């Protein structure tokens, strides 16, 4: 664990208020609502930053249009932007994203997670690690990491 904060005082942004969905009654019984950008965003927006009491959304680590979804191809790509260039938390954040999606998306989905180009010093390294499922699997057997992740994924206060 890092003893002191990597980014002591990040900029906090307004939350984008949740767009109300049309009430399910309105929809025809057998209608199909494909998984879309907003739905995936709703899965990850409230993930807490590992070292701040703010959500990834509030820190603009995640934005809705940084999420690509193709329900037909069962494919999701999330591009997140660490708060600072050398954020050692980047992998943890990425891990949280992956775990949250693993828990929230149908198993048919393929998920790619990467840091926004140019947003991190060791960009490619981080991306490679986040998309090596063997290392992710190993990470999720590491109690310290799992606690850290669950901390971040804990349902938010509001």
């Amino acid at each position, binding site marked *: 664990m890092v003893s002191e904060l990597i980014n002591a005082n990040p900029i906090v942004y307004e939350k984008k208020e949740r767009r109300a969905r049309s009430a399910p009654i309105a929809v025809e019984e057998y209608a199909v609502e494909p998984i879309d950008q907003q739905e995936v965003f709703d899965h990850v927006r409230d993930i807490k930053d590992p070292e701040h009491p703010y959500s990834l959304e509030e820190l603009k680590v995640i934005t809705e249009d940084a999420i690509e979804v193709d329900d037909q191809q069962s494919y999701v790509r999330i591009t997140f932007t660490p708060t600072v260039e050398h954020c050692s938390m980047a992998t943890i954040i990425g891990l949280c994203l992956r775990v949250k999606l693993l828990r929230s998306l149908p*198993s*048919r989905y*393929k998920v790619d997670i990467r840091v926004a180009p140019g947003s991190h010093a060791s960009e490619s390294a981080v991306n*490679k690690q986040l*998309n*090596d*499922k*063997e*290392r992710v*699997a*190993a990470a999720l*057997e590491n109690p310290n990491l799992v606690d850290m992740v669950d901390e971040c994924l804990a349902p938010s206060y509001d």
Partner: protein
Amino acid sequence: MELYEGACELKLLQTLEGHTDRVWSLVWNPATGTAETPLVFASCSGDKTVRIWEQNPSPSSSSSSHSSWNCKAVLEDTHTRTVRSCSWSPSGKLLAVASFDATTSIWENVGGDFECVSTLEGHENEVKSVSWNASGTLLATCGRDKSVWIWEAQPGNEFECVSVLQGHSQDVKMVLWHPTLDVLFSCSYDNTVKVWADDDDDWQCVQTLGEPNNGHSSTVWALSFNKTGDKMVTCSDDLTLKIWEMDSTSMQSADGYAPWRHLCTITGYHDRTIFSVHWSSEGIIASGAADDAIRFFVEDKDGLVDGPSYKLLLKEEKAHGMDINSVQWSPGEKRLLASASDDGTIKIWELASLCTGNGY
């Protein structure tokens, strides 16, 4: 007679359920599949267990498609974390099991049931692969600590550390002994394949197959040799398969070690990471990837004009519901293939050729 495209089909014989988490890898017992001994293979999983599966000998007909498989034994309560891979000793008596809990356990088949006879400790953390050499005297392990360990089997299931090989700059995904020579191959997250050979007990990296020599541009996940051992195929996160050839001509005088050179690259077929590749005794390369598909390649004899090339023989879309982690050809004459997946299942396939007779 040659196999050619469309001349064969892949039949799903059975789907084996039992693991309660993703299945990482499986390996056939090399000493089975003969007339008297039914086929056996071991599978290992994120559920921390190894399962031993055996084919019911089907008295009715010789065609294996009628025979079913069931779980003979479950090796559990030994490893505290994911069991990543395992390897049968050539005799088929011993099974070495590598786990993320940093240990490698050795199991002995005592009249059908398996007991853990030894545990190898030495890796700092996750052990990711284990492999017996052809003679069954040496065992190699590798892991996240970037090191490759070579152990020598002593009488009484004692294992002695022969050497600890440092060379890879990242965690080592797989180790595999050459089918005939005591030469060890390891592939790694650092995008390279390293070749290890010894001169009296002193193991050295004798060759590194990396990007400079047409190697892979991302993690190399697995490798496999053809029957004779003069060719090797590797698969990678860079979505390619690469064929390598032992260059006997430029034999390095001293230790009689022949270097390997890149023969050709099979690219443009997979669109997600290729986790597993296996070369059948009759020359069919099977590959399993994160795109849930199994593909088969054979050498393209016609296109010899510009060097040897390989062509897609067959492709099985959605072979599994999720990533495919391991594909393995069975020993014996039947063209049986087993595949293991994140969806927790193992599937037994038969590659049946539509034309009369089967190759070779």
